[in-house]
């Protein structure tokens, strides 16, 4: 295919760029059969192949047939189907290799360790003492204030997604609220009261300016270029 300059890329519509990404995506070629692979499962929405760089023998990769870069782009019914198949493959791994456990692993975004611009679900059969430790989730101590702040912000956002409306609150403001907090139960109550003041009262005009900058999911998906 002809080489494209940056100038060309700028002039393209998002649809054209998406089409271009599809053409250049090796996993889309694998799904369509243009590139050889070891397919272990296929239906109308997903394809499962064996990873060529396996963490353990039997490491399978589940690919949606449509091209999606990261998980938030996938519609709900497809996502549900992908993970139901992932569960079935995990079960198949247990039976086929007499594995004692499995890992299901998804990386969203380059920072999380995603390497190809096609979302995939890794299913890795595990045996005791197989020497793989990377999937053990580490545990670190965290400042309870920060935990509380995250919890407040996240809960509001999730409630909003499910249709319960609140004012927008960002992490920095939640943290600012936290230092005034007293120790123990009183402090928690105080924080909750403050939160209630913020959310319960009439929306102030100032708050509208303080909306967090919106994260563009497409931007994260485009970081691969």
């Amino acid at each position, binding site marked *: 295919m002809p080489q494209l300059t940056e100038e060309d890329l700028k002039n393209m519509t998002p649809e054209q760029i998406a089409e271009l990404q599809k053409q250049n995506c090796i996993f889309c070629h694998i799904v369509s059969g243009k590139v050889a692979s070891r397919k272990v499962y296929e*239906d109308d929405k997903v394809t499962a192949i064996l990873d060529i760089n396996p963490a353990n023998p039997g490491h399978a990769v589940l690919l949606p047939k449509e091209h999606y870069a990261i998980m938030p782009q996938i519609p709900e019914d497809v996502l549900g189907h992908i993970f139901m198949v992932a569960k079935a493959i995990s079960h198949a791994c247990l039976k086929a290799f007499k594995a004692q456990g499995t890992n299901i692993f998804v990386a969203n975004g380059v920072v999380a360790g995603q390497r190809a611009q096609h979302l995939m679900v890794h299913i890795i059969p595990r045996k005791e003492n197989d020497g793989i430790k990377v999937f053990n989730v580490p545990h670190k101590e965290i400042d309870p204030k920060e935990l509380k702040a995250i919890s407040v912000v996240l809960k509001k956002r999730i409630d909003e997604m499910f249709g319960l409306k609140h004012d927008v609150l960002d992490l920095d403001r939640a943290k600012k609220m936290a230092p005034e907090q007293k120790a123990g139960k009183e402090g928690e109550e105080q924080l909750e009261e403050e939160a209630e003041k913020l959310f319960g009262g009439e929306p102030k005009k100032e708050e509208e300016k303080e909306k967090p900058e919106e994260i563009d999911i497409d931007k994260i998906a485009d970081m691969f270029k």
Partner: protein
Amino acid sequence: MKKDCAFCQAIWDRNNEKIYEDDKVVAVLDERPAAPGHVLVLPKEHYPILEQVPDFVFRHAFNIANKISIALFETLHSQGTNIIVNNGLAGGQESAHFMINIIARKEGDGLNFQWTPKQLSEEEMSTIELQMKEQTKAIGQFEEEKAKPIEMEAKAKKISSDEGNYLWKKARRIP
């Protein structure tokens, strides 16, 4: 609910902080997180491992996990998320309650989930492929949620002796 499971207790403890709750799953923040923004999605029923979780609960849990992942992107300005299910003791599962880990990632957070690839010969790969195919043949039937039986109130019709009732009117006409 199982009494000796710490997670079950946490789920049914009403004072506990939950960031999401519905009839099937609960989402809570990990108290000792891998990174700021480490969420656990737990089914409300007690299922020790993945194989015991019904398909429709699992599907629902992942749809919620996806929504939480989006919320992490938007609120904590994370640049990526990892979704990890550790299944079975050999898989690194720490407690006897199935859960999905969602970890918000940022550049330079010191986490690494990248495995070292193992080199396998073509022959080994072929055997694995055959073994897997044998087992994946059975995939296709997914467990759906059974509709709850609709409770109907029994309403027996009583014939009243009202003037307006057609049946009574008719009865009187017979000599």
